[in-house]
């Protein structure tokens, strides 16, 4: 049972990391969209993610479904506790999706400009808020005996979580700029590299602030694993810089994928074995052991995952091969 619970933590981790890496570049492209020149450059931004965003968003849907299935109590507490932020994330994702598909349907500059704004804000809002939510999980929440969050919306906007929010935002912006450097050519490609270099500096500073703050206040269970993972993340961060300076865009982007995965794994390591920490009473915390589904459900779901996930990875590679190359 314990093995299954840990496996499911890792599987959900993979889904959420997959989402952050894949939709991360969509969101990141959106963060830069308004900085691009009107006309061709903005259109090329949209074209660079057009065939992918929908499949990428499915990682989030599947991750949400898997969390619901494997750790229903955690799903219930987090989703109801973060009600308003999630509504705003949904709002962003809705606008983002529709903008990508509708922007190029009408050739009226006002139409295009309106969807450009919707696309960009629709990407920035989730980039920021997802990370604010992660900040609150690291910090812990005030829970009652049923596991319901009790401190209200404003308490979610605490300084620590806002800093984590900015870490996430700059991480996605960096990731998106690196992706653009891979997928575009000419002047736009140089511009994207410069953006990546700027985003890298901001992200690096925020990363160390957040790591220091987390290490001094919120490191509750074990130090070694979070420390190792964070160190590896720093190495990945260095590689991003090195490849970006050399103009090796694909490797810089892959290093960024690794850095996102490592940062998120270190979040899991900081929390483990908790998923939601109750600040008012540790006994109320939701761990992977006290909040999981039954043995049978976890087993059935494992079969589903083992059957399905290889095929999913196959689709993802297939689509990227068909739409490979610069836009």
């Amino acid at each position: 049972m314990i093995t299954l619970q840990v496996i499911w933590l890792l599987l959900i981790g993979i889904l959420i990391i997959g989402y952050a890496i894949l939709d991360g570049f969509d969101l990141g492209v959106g963060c830069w969209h308004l900085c691009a020149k009107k006309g061709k450059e903005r259109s090329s931004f949209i074209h660079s993610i057009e065939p992918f965003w929908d499949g990428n968003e499915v990682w989030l849907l599947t991750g949400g479904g898997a969390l619901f299935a494997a750790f229903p109590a955690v799903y219930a507490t987090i989703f109801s506790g973060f009600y308003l932020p999630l509504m705003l994330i949904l709002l962003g994702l809705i606008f983002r999706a529709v903008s990508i598909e509708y922007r190029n349907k009408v050739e009226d500059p006002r139409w295009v400009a309106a969807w450009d704004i919707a696309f960009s804000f629709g990407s920035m809002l989730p980039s920021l808020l997802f990370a604010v939510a992660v900040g609150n999980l690291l910090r812990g929440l005030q829970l009652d005996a049923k596991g319901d969050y009790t401190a209200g919306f404003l308490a979610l906007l605490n300084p620590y979580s806002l800093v984590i929010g900015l870490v996430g935002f700059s991480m996605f912006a960096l990731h998106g700029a690196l992706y653009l450097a891979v997928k575009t050519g000419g002047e736009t490609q140089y511009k994207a590299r410069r953006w990546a270099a700027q985003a890298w500096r901001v992200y690096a500073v925020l990363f160390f602030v957040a790591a220091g703050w987390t290490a001094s206040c919120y490191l509750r269970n074990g130090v070694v694993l979070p420390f190792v993972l964070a160190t590896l993340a720093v190495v990945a961060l260095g590689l991003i810089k090195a490849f970006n300076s050399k103009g090796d865009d694909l490797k810089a982007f892959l290093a960024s994928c690794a850095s996102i995965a490592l940062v998120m794994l270190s979040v899991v390591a900081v929390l483990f074995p908790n998923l939601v920490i109750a600040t008012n009473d540790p006994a109320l915390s939701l761990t992977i052991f006290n909040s999981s589904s039954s043995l049978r459900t976890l087993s059935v779901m494992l079969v589903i995952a083992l059957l399905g996930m290889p095929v999913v990875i196959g689709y993802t590679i297939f689509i990227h091969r068909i739409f490979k190359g610069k836009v």
Partner: protein
Amino acid sequence: MDAVWLARLQFALTVGFHYIFPPLSIGLAWMLFFYQTRFLKTGDPLFQQLSRFWMRMFAITFAVGVATGITMEFQFGTNWAAYSRFVGDIFGAPLAAEGVFAFFLESSFLAILIYGEKRVSRKVYWLSSLLVAVGATLSAFWIVVANSWQQTPAGYHLVNGRAELTSFWEAVFNPSTLPRYLHVITGALVVGTFFIIGVSALMLLKKRHVAFAERSLKSALIPFFLSILLVMGIGHGHAVQVAKTQPAKLAAFEGLWETRTGAPLVLFGIPNAKTEKTDWEISIPNGLSLMVGMSKDTKVQGLKDFPKEDRPPLLTTFFSFHAMVYLGGWFALLATMGLFLWWRGTVTQNRLFLSCAALTIPLPFIANEVGWIAAEVGRQPWVVYNLMRTKDAVSASVSAGEILASIILFSLIYTLLFGVWVYLLGRQFDKGPQPLEEEVRS
């Protein structure tokens, strides 16, 4: 206003809005596959033209469907935390399976269908049209599984204050899954096939893109006729199942108060909860008993058998169910009329038929919506039939004010999206199909 009521309103609004789009995507996806298959077989560029034109309508629709769909999955947790804790052991698995088995398939090949025509061979393109249709149809399966388990829970036992899985297959194929799934899919086919007929009819009435519209209209007549026959046949089977598994719901559908043999089929009436009678009733004697059990001696349970607090809201359930049935009848009439005129060779000129068809464009959407309303309101006051009441299912940590604020926000956005969707469909209508491509691409 109380939080339970607002949470229900939010769910109804978001699912009701979302449900405008997937039936049309599912129906159109199968028509696209049909056109692609004909094109691959015959090489007739007209099928390519049909496929490309309806593909653009499909893409416009699909985008809103995806965008509004994600709200649904989040909402179980955001608004129904107590429910999520109670059913998560069972209810989450189909949602995850939907992602793994259906959405990934659908979204990957959709990219090829929309953006990849020039990048893949004709066969791969044809295959993509098939896989998108299969993916869309599978996603409907898993979500109907989840919803059917709320209607007729199976394969579980109650331990640790929650429902835990005892048999995955019993939970997946619970008594209402198959009838409901087939009814939903055929309902989607009705929407998709009729959308093509209705829009083509409107083109013909306005004398726009006439040659294209004539072929387009004819191409969807037989699929529409078959879909409507199937949806009605399966719908009947589904009602018989409801009579067995959710008798209170059936009694509310039909406005039946007394448990009796020779139960009448109410054609019209207004159920009155105070007097426990149906006012202004016009009915066929023995009709309901015949429908349910093929014999007038079949006993059908009436509402009075159930305590008042266990009865579904009567007016909504009764009228939405009847509206669905009458709309189905109207579609069957229209389909028959279309086929008859086709046989006479006048279907594309007959102004009465074309006008009826054009005016009917919104009705299949409405039929699908009222069908869902009947199914979901008819389940009340239960969120899981006979296990958990809706009022016990909400999130304790979400206040009424927060829900109200997000309802207002989402209503504004959804109104905007709906307007944009209609506007873009209208533009596509005006633009019409691309000219025929004579040379055959390989």
